[in-house]
């Protein structure tokens, strides 16, 4: 039988791949060992960082070069020969971005239980993907997600809206990945940010430019292995140091208990409370300045001038005078700038005026800030209950949004076009989720172990005796780690230590006292996560333009070779535009990333799901549903995201513009239902879809003979 012959060939192919990647893994471990020895022998740090970086990027580029292709099936969907297991790894790497690798543990460290919304949302979405979308798209068997919209609904409009949404969502996301690459390389090798961006860009380009999906797939598998080793090695090491357990995912419960114990002690500590009340005082001062910004500006200016004069008079060290002068030079010039500065001052002081430096107790669900439940006062109880309800509502809304967004992200959906069969596509979703779960179960463990280390060995230590990593990271960027002796007792209170979320993973080896090469390894893992996601996204944007817009709409006569060339040129152009955008260093861009999930969910989820499961869905309904969903999301974000509010000049208070107190990050929770309802109503009001759509439905719903 031909089927049996194919199965034997398939399994031989899988074994060959498994052998190759096992060799790769061994070589990577050998590189790690080599670096560890090199550090012992005294190789300078910059060399260790640079060689880690150069070797791994060179390997990715090498894989990309070996897989170069100009055939359309190879370029767009990796020849549809990727076995389920390997597609699972590639999807996991494609999916786990710099934000997953670096950010998740950071959010869990800072927000405790609330951060678990990301863990649940980013994994649960795979259920929707497996049950509702992946197998059907694979049986449909074209190249892109807009392809399906175009074939199912007919006409150009659904396809173009889909292509537009795919481009917008993926572009924002790719900019952030490139930003992450720049950040990591500049922090760990001493290259400048811009140079870091271009080194990373080179690695990305070689893959997606030369070999499209084929090269990206095989690089992503390697990148998955790198990023998992880079996350699990320091985590296991920390766990061995702290509890002697090899399985931190199972055993960090004991550390969690000790963290909770330390949190209770700190909340009752008089020095911590002193810092809290000083911070409350500062917040009140900033609030007073906000009431009359103009006067406060003049007063601040005079205060700064006086300080410079008195520093000069007492012959203070030059560095201090220069710092004061720099601060004076950077003072706000306009009233709007000053208002923003005072608002920032007030907000950060308000957070610190709460318990535990504004971090909620690690395990307590839906606590806002450090405020534990204070029983007694009836009004306080009522306010607490309202906050609790709002926090729970937002948690659930965010979880649902992230899930639907995960299932609708075009760069992930296209990965399931690359498996050899429908059943392999289904299995590969299971593999994907397994590989993703490995990282997402590790992230909470790392957050807890790092928190234990900080609460136990950093808080309560005299500021002059702090571990070296504190000053090293705050020198790199005071936005990442900073220490201010607020109450002037010379001892570090938790309320005096600021740590940004990004630092938790990147500095975890430092914080745990591990050697420098582990820090480099973590950085290389973050790079792998960012590069693999950037690769997939770049291809999605380029293919949406070259395949869906250029070939399907503008020039249907274009040959396969011409489409591949168009896509390659676009990959270059988009990568450069994205790098230039990233080089602008718009930090507020993170707001847009979370927004991307809501937009993807609203644009694709209703149209794809009903397109498969509801015969009556038609072109008018899909078009209206996609536009309505996108419109509601965009409107809600515009009215509620701080950055967009200030651009649009919206001044109505948030309480009025928010619906049920839902944060704009979860706008999809409104956009998706609106999309569903509009799609259904408009479809029912207009004509049934044509016979071609019905034939397509029968073809994608039912297994075809010879599919096994």
């Amino acid at each position, binding site marked *: 039988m031909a089927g049996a012959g194919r199965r034997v060939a398939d399994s031989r192919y899988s074994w060959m791949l498994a052998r190759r990647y096992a060799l790769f893994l061994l070589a990577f471990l050998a590189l790690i060992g080599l670096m560890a020895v090199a550090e012992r022998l005294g190789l300078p740090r910059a060399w260790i960082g640079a060689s880690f970086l150069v070797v791994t990027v060179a390997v990715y580029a090498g894989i990309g070069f070996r897989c170069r292709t100009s055939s359309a099936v190879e370029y767009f969907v990796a020849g549809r020969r990727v076995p389920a297991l390997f597609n699972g790894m590639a999807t996991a790497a494609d999916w786990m971005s710099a934000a997953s690798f670096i950010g998740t543990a950071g959010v869990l460290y800072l927000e405790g*239980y609330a951060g678990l919304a990301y863990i649940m949302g980013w994994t649960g979405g795979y259920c929707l993907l497996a049950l*509702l979308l992946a197998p059907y798209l694979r049986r449909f068997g074209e190249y892109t997600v807009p392809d399906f919209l175009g074939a199912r609904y007919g006409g150009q409009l659904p396809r173009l809206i889909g292509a537009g949404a795919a481009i917008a969502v993926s572009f924002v996301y790719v900019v952030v990945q490139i930003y992450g690459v720049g950040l990591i390389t500049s922090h760990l090798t001493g290259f400048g940010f811009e140079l870091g961006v271009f080194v990373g860009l080179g690695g990305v380009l070689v893959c997606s430019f030369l070999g499209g999906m084929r090269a990206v797939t095989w690089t992503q598998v390697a990148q998955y292995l790198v990023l998992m080793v880079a996350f699990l090695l320091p985590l296991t090491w920390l766990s061995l140091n702290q509890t002697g357990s090899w399985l931190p995912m199972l055993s960090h419960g004991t550390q969690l208990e000790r963290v909770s114990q330390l949190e209770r002690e700190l909340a009752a500590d008089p020095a911590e409370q002193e810092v809290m009340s000083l911070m409350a005082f500062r917040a009140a001062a900033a609030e007073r300045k906000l009431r009359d910004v103009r006067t406060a500006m003049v007063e601040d200016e005079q205060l700064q001038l006086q300080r410079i004069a008195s520093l000069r008079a007492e012959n203070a060290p030059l560095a201090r005078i220069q710092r004061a002068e720099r601060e004076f030079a950077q003072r706000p010039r306009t009233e709007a700038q000053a208002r923003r500065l005072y608002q920032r001052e007030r907000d950060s002081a308000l957070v610190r005026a709460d318990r535990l430096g504004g971090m909620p107790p690690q395990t307590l*669900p839906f606590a806002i800030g450090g405020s534990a439940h204070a029983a007694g006062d009836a009004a306080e109880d009522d306010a607490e209950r309202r906050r609790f309800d709002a926090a729970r509502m937002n948690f659930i809304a965010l979880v649902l949004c992230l899930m639907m967004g995960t299932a609708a992200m075009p760069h992930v959906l296209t990965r399931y076009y690359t498996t050899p069969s429908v059943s392999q596509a*289904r299995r590969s979703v*299971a593999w994907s989720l397994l590989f993703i*779960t490995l990282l997402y179960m590790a992230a909470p463990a790392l957050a807890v172990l790092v928190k234990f280390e900080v609460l136990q060995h950093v808080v309560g230590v005299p500021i002059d005796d702090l571990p070296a990593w504190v000053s090293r990271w705050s020198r790199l960027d005071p936005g990442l780690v900073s220490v201010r002796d607020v109450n002037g007792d010379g001892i570090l209170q938790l309320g005096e230590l600021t740590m940004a979320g990004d630092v938790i993973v990147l500095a975890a080896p430092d914080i745990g006292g591990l050697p420098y090469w582990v820090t480099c390894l973590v950085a290389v893992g973050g790079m792998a996560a960012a590069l693999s996601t950037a690769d997939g996204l770049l291809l999605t944007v380029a293919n949406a333009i070259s395949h869906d817009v250029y070939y399907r709409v503008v020039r249907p006569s274009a040959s396969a070779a011409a489409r591949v060339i168009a896509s390659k040129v676009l990959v270059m152009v988009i990568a450069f535009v994205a790098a230039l955008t990233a080089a602008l260093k718009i930090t507020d861009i993170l707001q847009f990333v979370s927004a991307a999930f809501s937009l993807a969910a609203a644009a694709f989820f209703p149209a794809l799901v009903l397109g498969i499961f509801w015969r009556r869905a038609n072109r008018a309904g899909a078009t209206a549903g996609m536009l309505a969903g996108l419109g509601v999301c965009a409107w809600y974000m515009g009215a509620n995201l701080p950055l967009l509010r200030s651009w649009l000049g919206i001044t109505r208070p948030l309480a009025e513009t928010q619906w049920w107190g839902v944060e704009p990050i979860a706008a999809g929770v409104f956009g998706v239902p609106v999309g569903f309802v509009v799609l259904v109503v408009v479809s029912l009001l207009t004509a049934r879809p044509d016979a071609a759509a019905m034939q397509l439905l029968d073809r994608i719903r039912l297994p075809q003979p010879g599919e096994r």
Partner: protein
Amino acid sequence: MSTGPAHRFWRHTRRLTGALLGVWLAVSLLVPWFARDLAAWQVFGFPLSYWLAAEGALLLYLAIIVAYVIGMERLEAAFLDSAHEAAGGTDGAGPGSA
């Protein structure tokens, strides 16, 4: 309404999909909704609410997908066998049968 193998296959598929989606929705909503109430219980040294959201839900999601993979492979095999028998070589999955 036809009751051919194609119709039966699609009905079973919908039923399986619906049931597993129900489990998915229940996990996603109930775990956060009752988080405060579950915090008093302990598993492996974790408060139950925290463990469920950090690890338990993930394992349940994985179990849902594995159950779906197994269920669908059985349904598809049964469908292809019966379509093969019934049609004797012609395509049993014609339009309009679902």
